[in-house]
């Protein structure tokens, strides 16, 4: 140390001694109670979930092995049918998502507390909650009854479920906007709809497109199961193969599903990166 202007390292600043307060007992207890509660919940669910049968995984190892072996020798001789089914699955997801976005936008705007009055927001939100609460498969069962077997029932199932999801996701984006540009638009004498279109939509556009692509990925995955209840797509083929113990074919179909889902996820991730 040649620099004489540097502060003397031995210089000490007198720190007044204070007692560091301890967290009160009640606060320390809270953490433990949380963990205890979790353990109680898991124990309570053990029997109902038949967790005691965990040994079946080992006892029925022969079934598992047979299934596993099939994956090592997948049977692709009907690959073109599987691929066509997979394409239908993606097409179902496309239409389901598109309809849900189209009709979800007005609902989302009306579900936003910074846009619509509370007597519109609250009932609409509960309605959208209901759409979300019911799984696509359940909707598919209903639509199969209503409009008959086939992909259209699948589209409608995805549409209704995703309507609720888009209304929620989109309205959360709307509620997080910067209010100042909207005020700027309002001050010009613009009407309510113009405020939304010029002040709100440009702000939420990146998030909305990102949500849409993300839901499209999810919907492709969901659509692969819709066929199980007869609502079109590769799910039906898959279900039939499993039920008839054609494990090698099942394996081929599963591989095609995996590849297709990976491809779509990657493509959509790339598009989202560009948009945001």
């Amino acid at each position: 140390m040649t620099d004489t202007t540097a502060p003397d390292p031995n210089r000490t600043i007198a720190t007044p001694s204070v007692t560091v307060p301890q967290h009160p007992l009640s606060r320390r207890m809270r953490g433990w109670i949380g963990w205890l509660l979790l353990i109680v919940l898991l124990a309570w669910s053990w029997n109902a979930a038949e967790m005691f049968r965990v040994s079946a995984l080992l006892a029925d190892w022969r079934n598992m092995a047979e299934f596993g072996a099939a994956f090592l020798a997948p049977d692709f001789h009907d690959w073109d049918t599987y691929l066509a089914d997979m394409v239908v699955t993606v097409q179902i997801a496309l239409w389901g998502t598109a309809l849900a976005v189209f009709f979800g936008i007005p609902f989302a705007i009306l579900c936003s507390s910074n846009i619509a009055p509370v007597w519109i927001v609250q009932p609409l939100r509960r309605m959208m909650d209901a759409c979300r609460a019911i799984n696509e498969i359940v909707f598919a069962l209903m639509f199969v009854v209503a409009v008959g077997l086939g992909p259209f029932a699948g589209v409608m199932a995805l549409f209704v479920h995703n309507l609720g999801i888009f209304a929620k996701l989109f309205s959360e984006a709307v509620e997080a906007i910067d209010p100042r540009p909207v005020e700027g638009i309002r001050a010009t004498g613009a009407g309510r709809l113009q405020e939304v279109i010029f002040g709100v939509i440009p702000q939420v556009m990146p998030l909305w497109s990102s949500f849409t692509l993300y839901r499209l990925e999810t919907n492709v995955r969901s659509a692969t199961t819709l066929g199980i209840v007869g609502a079109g797509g590769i799910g039906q083929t898959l279900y039939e193969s499993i039920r008839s113990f054609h494990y090698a074919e099942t394996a081929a179909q599963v591989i095609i599903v995996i590849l297709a889902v990976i491809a779509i996820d990657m493509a959509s991730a790339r598009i989202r990166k560009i948009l945001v």
Partner: protein
Amino acid sequence: MLLTIEGLTKRYGTGDAALNGVDLAIPAGEVVGLIGPSGAGKSTLIRCINRLVEPTAGRVFLAGDEVTGRRDLRFMRRRMGMIFQEFALVERLTVMENVLSGRLGYVPYWRSLLRRYPAADVQRAFATLDRVGLLDHVDKRADALSGGQRQRVGIARALLQQPDILLVDEPTASLDPKTSRQIMRLICEVCAERSLAAVVNMHDVALAQMFLSRIVGLRQGRVVYDGPSNGLTPEVLTVIYGEEDWTRSAQRDDDVADEDVHGARPHGREPLAAVG
């Protein structure tokens, strides 16, 4: 009188009166500076004029037409151009789209939705952007501009309304001292060119004195001074802002902006100390 304000009062939910019986009259073509400490009600007053904030009591007339109490606000708001402290532009829209939104109070809904503004509006938008010196930035997105440039877009948007009056809320509070002067100069020039009246909120007394000849002082929601800007004696400033050594304001220097390091800081209770 172009703008007449009678007994304007605004009480917020908490019961505090932000404005307390404000009377003000502004003839056509006059630019008035509105000064006062934070919380004096400057912003509230400006927003009560075009009813972005709904006044509790009192009346506002624009060229004889009452603004308060009417439902067709659109027709009154479009005659009052507003300029904001933080510009209130739609960041993701282009400069041109932001400026054209100044016509939203005039164009039919369908035209604005299809973004098909009348040719005369587009022409006027170009001319206005030329006037504020942004002709080279027409197609840039608003978020690609500097603070001074954004405020010019804000001015152009307000001018495109072809208003009778400009309501200007702290136009320079987000800008550096040099840009602040340029923006104030621009506002005063365009008002003179178009014989536009304006109410300009300012926290910087020195800047207000430099550009404006009539000053209204607001304290706790009441007008405590209304007179020429050279009448702002230390006694008057004490009435508006409270006790402080105001004599230092006499040493004001016109070239101070270049070396003034504190200029961009909000001055709070010492509006003159920073330029002393």
